[in-house]
């Protein structure tokens, strides 16, 4: 009843609707279209171009005619062991920071989820790394924390009687990983804090009355309540960390063993290689791999959306 009323209201109020009535489904779609078209234009057009480039032997240096070579680029990619190494580095630089920052972020959120003197100040200090420019994070850790001679960490090691370590030169991937964990822990903490604050307190109180200890409550109630938040943290963390470029560029510039897939593709294309055809093939493989990861991650997302019905 109310829907027919609204439809009539529209035809009466809007003269345009009289001459050419938009169907209800199109009126619903209209507000969505600008955003949708914008995203299709800016993400799908480059993708289609990449597919085309990947089937050519386009090299900028030395310049030559661009010729269609079929799947040759994909074939040579299979025999490129540097690409394999980059994939392995990407896996390490994604899995280790995501898990590390999730565990620390959860622990910090649990520490903050209680009243104590100066809680606001501590929370402010803990979220700050996430707000810093990633390039600054990389440069600051490299030059003031990891530095072989004047670095704060080596100062501590020497005070404790150890021998100084050239972190960036000897452990490039670990150094980058530590800065990533430092920057992303606050992000995980914010998500987990939001989860903890949405936990219904009456359930916890009831469990306490039933004599459940703090560890039993944490394992059986808090953890299961936090699960969707953890999944969300893993999902978002993976999206951003798999694409890390900034810290690698400023800390090692892709130095020994720290070239991940994004940095590798960059090096082969506009970062000096200028092999546009070959580099496009790499990026198509990256996209396909991402789609595989994404399908998995989107399943998690769809679980989050499940049960949400439009009334």
């Amino acid at each position, binding site marked *: 009843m109310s829907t027919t009323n609204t439809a009539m209201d529209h035809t009466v109020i809007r003269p345009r609707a009289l001459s050419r009535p938009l169907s209800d489904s199109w009126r619903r779609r209209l507000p969505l279209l600008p955003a949708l078209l914008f995203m299709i234009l800016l993400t799908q057009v480059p993708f289609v171009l990449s597919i085309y480039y990947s089937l050519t032997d386009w090299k900028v240096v030395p310049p030559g005619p661009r010729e269609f070579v079929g799947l040759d680029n994909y074939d040579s990619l299979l025999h490129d062991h540097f690409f394999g190494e980059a994939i392995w580095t990407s896996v390490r630089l994604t899995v280790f920071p995501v898990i590390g920052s999730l565990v620390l972020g959860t622990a910090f959120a649990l520490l903050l989820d209680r009243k104590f003197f100066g809680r606001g100040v*501590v929370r402010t200090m803990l979220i700050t790394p996430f707000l810093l420019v990633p390039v600054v994070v990389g440069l600051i850790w490299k030059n003031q924390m990891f530095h072989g001679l004047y670095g704060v960490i080596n100062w501590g090691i020497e005070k404790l009687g150890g021998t100084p370590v050239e972190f960036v030169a000897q452990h490039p991937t670990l150094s980058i990983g530590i800065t990533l964990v430092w920057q992303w822990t606050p992000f995980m903490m914010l998500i987990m804090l939001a989860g903890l604050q949405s936990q219904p307190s009456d359930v916890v109180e009831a469990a306490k009355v039933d004599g459940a200890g703090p560890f039993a409550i944490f394992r059986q109630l808090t953890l299961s309540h936090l699960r969707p938040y953890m999944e969300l943290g893993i999902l978002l963390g993976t999206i951003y960390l798999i694409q890390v470029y900034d810290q690698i560029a400023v800390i090692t510039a892709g130095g020994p063993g720290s070239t991940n897939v994004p940095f590798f593709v960059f090096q082969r294309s506009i970062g000096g290689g200028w092999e546009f055809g070959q580099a496009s093939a790499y990026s198509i493989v990256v996209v396909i791999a991402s789609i595989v990861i994404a399908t998995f991650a989107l399943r998690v997302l769809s679980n989050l959306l499940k049960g949400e019905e*439009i009334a």
Partner: protein
Amino acid sequence: MSAAEVHVAVGERRWVNRALGAVAWLVGLIVFFPVFWMVLNSLKTEQDANTSPKLFFDPTLDRYRDVTESGGGLLSFGEAFTNSAVIVILSTLIVLALAIPAAYALAIKPVTKWRDVLFFFISTKFLPVVASILPVWILARNLELLNTRQVLILLYTAINLPLAVWMLRSFFREIPRELIEAAEIDGAGLRGQLTSIILPLAAPGIAATALLCVIFAWNEFFYAVQLNPVDGSTVPIWVTTNVTARGDFLAKLSAASVLACIPVVLAGWIAQKRMIRGLAMGAIK
């Protein structure tokens, strides 16, 4: 349980609480230390900064003058900040202008396939930025957009739009349906519903969304360094120009880093509670 036992239990719990509070303070100070040290280094001379860590020294603001006045580099402090401000503000406004109607069409009067559309928006975030850089670079070169602000405004809009649609959709779902139906009966179209009901009620959520867009756009480095290495470049690029191959630079770099981080850090500190709420609602509900 006797009164004495209850007393002991409460006392014990208070002791545990205090200990955990102390642990939280310790963790906070450790995590914050690199930031504190960066600020300290920015107030030192290069000699004081490039030696074994020093806590006591004569503080000076000269490094801030050095990095803001130096005209020798390709990109001056003033240019970089103006470029960043223009690019960040315009791209965030475009994001909101596109995302608010889209979120309306996904949450309030949902299109039939709203789930698929939402998936499409999110899935674009999985396309690695680096995989698109080559065609984007070639397109930008052919359209003569390299080294312009416009190209970064467009790309930062594309980076932030999916996140904004996702977050705004969940904020809009919180708005009581009756209010919107009442406005519709009064004859309010999309614009009327937005200005009279949706925008005022969802203002905190819109602010949280805008803040996240600002953070990501302000901090972005890859597109900026690839597409705008010469002109129209932004604050993160300017920070890296303070790293020199010869001579000491840590104090200058620290001063530049503090300047580059201040706007976003202050905004984040002020809006932290709202951001927690925004992430929780935007994400799960």
